[in-house]
């Protein structure tokens, strides 16, 4: 089975999920989307780059990926990292997970995740729409409402034990956004303290914490 999504013909779709039952359930969804599902039974021993090369050299033309892959020793990376890797290389991949409690781990990669869906809501056509969103961004760059803008970042609190800090983007909302230390460049990290201000590119049209992402951090001269 194959179908044309935007300008690309997609057929085999790889399912990367550590739960066998979930993989089987997704197979049905993908079949109903007029695509051919194949499942990755795991464990995936390699790092994310090596595993992506394996995907590339196989039959898959798209992927559906769960976030929590490391729980059962299925993989040594999480789904967001793999999806980001795929998208950067022009390979459409949808991240599908109950993300409410995982969004802080997904956020560092969110820039490269055009489609984040919930398994409790994603039907066949939602999945195809997700692939369309991926291909649009692969071909044309960000969709207008995902485009990042340079803006002021205000650090509210540094939580060293958690290896993270809380920030606010005044131009976006007063929502407190947590971010891990490892997701900002060292020059910013070195200066991190309460009330520290810097700039970053942020998608200011994000509608919630599940959409917002940060990139290209800059010190204010």
């Amino acid at each position, binding site marked *: 089975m194959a179908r044309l999504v935007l300008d690309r013909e997609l057929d085999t779709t790889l399912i990367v999920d550590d*739960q066998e039952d*979930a993989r089987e359930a997704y197979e049905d969804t993908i079949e109903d989307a007029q695509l051919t599902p194949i499942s990755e039974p795991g464990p995936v021993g390699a790092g994310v780059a090596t595993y992506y090369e394996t995907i590339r050299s196989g039959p898959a033309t798209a992927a559906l990926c769960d976030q929590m892959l490391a729980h059962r020793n299925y993989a040594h990376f999480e789904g967001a990292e793999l999806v980001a890797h795929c998208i950067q290389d022009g390979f459409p991949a949808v991240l599908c997970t*109950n993300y409410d409690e995982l969004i802080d781990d997904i956020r560092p990669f969110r820039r490269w995740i055009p489609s984040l869906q919930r398994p409790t809501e994603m039907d066949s056509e939602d999945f195809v729409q997700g692939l369309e969103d991926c291909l649009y961004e692969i071909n044309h760059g960000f969709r207008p409402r995902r485009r990042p803008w340079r803006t002021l970042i205000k650090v509210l609190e540094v939580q060293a034990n958690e290896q993270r800090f809380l920030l606010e983007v005044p131009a976006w909302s007063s929502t407190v956004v947590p971010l891990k230390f490892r997701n900002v460049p060292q020059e910013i990290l070195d200066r991190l*303290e309460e009330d520290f201000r810097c700039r970053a590119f942020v998608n200011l049209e994000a509608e919630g914490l599940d959409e917002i992402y940060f990139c290209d951090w800059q010190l204010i001269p």
Partner: protein
Amino acid sequence: MSRAALRFSSAILRRLGEELNPNADQGILELAKNAYDADARKCIVELDSVGKAGGTVRVSDDGDSMTDAELRDGFLVLGRSSKSASAKTRLGRTPVGNKGLGRLAALRLGHAVSVRARPRSEPRSEYHLDIDWDEYDRVGLVEDVPLEIQPRRRPARARQGTQIEITKLRKNLTRGDVKRLARSLILLADPFAEDPGGFKPQLKAKEFDDLTKLVSSRYFSDADFHLVAEVDEHGHASASVVDWRGAELFAAAHADIARRRKKQAPYDIPSTKFDLWVFILSKEAFLTRNATLTEVREWLKAFGGVHLYINKLRVSPYGNVGDDWLAMNARRAANPEERPSTNTALGRMWVIDEDEVLTQKTDRTGLIENEHFDELKAFGIDSMDWLARRRLEVAERRRTAERKEAERATRKSRSGVRTQISRVPEPMRAALEKAFDRYDASRQREATRLRREVQLYRTLSTAGITAATFAHESASNPLKVISQSAMTIERRGKEALDGDYNRLLARPVARLRRATETLGVLSSVTLNLIDRDRRRPSRVQLHDVFDHVVRTFRPFFNGRDIDVVTAYADGEPYLRATPAAVESILTNLLNNAITALEEAQVSQRRIEIRTEIVDDERLVLRVLDNGPGIDTDRLDLRDIWLPGETTHSTGLGLTIVRDAVADLGGEVDAIANGDLGGAEFTVSLPLLGA
């Protein structure tokens, strides 16, 4: 027309010198600062017989010194300085001296001054300048005293530098003067005295021997902990911590320090030694020490942080003021008790890098941030983390000991009271014994109740932690499979059965969907309740939080056929609190109402959440249900707030409500049978605004 010019009376020298700068130590310090600005490494301040008038002060250094012209146009010009704060010296130092008035004060400490300058730029020359201040007292104008700069041939092997000797001191120097001078010299000095390019002031004063030692020893001996961590040539770390007496407190092998590294891998760095002196800057800690808290604080302000030395040379900017390359301050923010910051600790990372794996940037603004530099940082951070863990362990032990000590003290006090009572004559003794027995019994009951309460909290915490840990597996994963399968059944059913789908499958699929929705709450409620961001005080919009709680519980209400109605007052009332505290109030009241309704035979179960704003100052929250109400024959209304008194589940929900409300400065109340027939709980909270 005749020409004229302003001229200065010789009395101006006294005004500008000793009257503007009354403290002798500041004058002498100015000479040491001049040495620092002249890129001297050594600067010896000798105080000879200064305990009485007539003594001598000698300041000698090995700096760049001055030529004939520099003496004439710089040193002897008062009020103008060739130093610019922004221009660095040859060795990259920021000049610290002032406009020469401090120097004038120093030079005028005695009746005479002799300057001997051996400039770096003229290796064979030296210049002598003598000033006899008494001559100025004999003339009217400053310019009336001619000064001579005498060039001399520098003796062979005599090194560059300046020596200024102030003789026949007008006044004695007190111990206070010398102590202030010693403290100021420490603040100029390279803290470790190991950097060949560093400034090493030395104080020589036979009369104040203890103070001269202070300058050389700094305040290291006042540190509460000294961490010594090392990485050997194989990348294996070890560490120990000694107290201020040098006694070892803790020791660690590589596995302890590198426990968070993957497979506890060796550090990929050359042999490194990391010393860190950590100070507990509290008044109590410094009560019995020679140094004062202020002195050490100032010293740490100037030098705190970890300084990096590679092949014996200091590498900037690591450890400079404002540079926190090991993120000490960020890591301390979350745990101020046990972690050092750049304001409470001074450290030295000493690396012998024979293979030059750590390379400096070409502009000398630090090291290239390669993997070895990252590893060096990881070693520093891991060592400090290990120290923090050990200190935390000690703190925990101390707290346990304090608990035991409190119990012992209670027993002792009780026995003391009984002994005293036994000495009271009858019949008063019997009455006192009875009264004390009553008091003791009620205190013991209170202690037992508190112990049970603590135990219950611990048990509930454990249940919460377990639920949160497995929330994903227990709810999220099966949900994914169920909901995907339900959607597949719906899609395929509609296609295959056409019109019969609604008759055969629509209802079971709808049931599946409802069930997955209810199950989904399980994981989100559990994780939401423990979300640490919700435990952070902030402005809390009360109606928003109430809505959030109701939304979260909605599937539970639906599953129990409970109709939940909110009726809020106009406005957006808010206060400063943690969202978790406000949530716990409503969550526990709702839990209570749900449990009550389960027991009732009510056809239309209903919970109402009403708010009212009183005088723009208080929010009154009412939670009512149409359950059976509170059985006041069985339970006194006042007792429902006590732990374990209500029979539902833990019996702790209303106690948590009471405590959370009290923490917010509010009050609680309850009516056995309110507007809806069931219990009605009232919570009154002070507002910041509405």
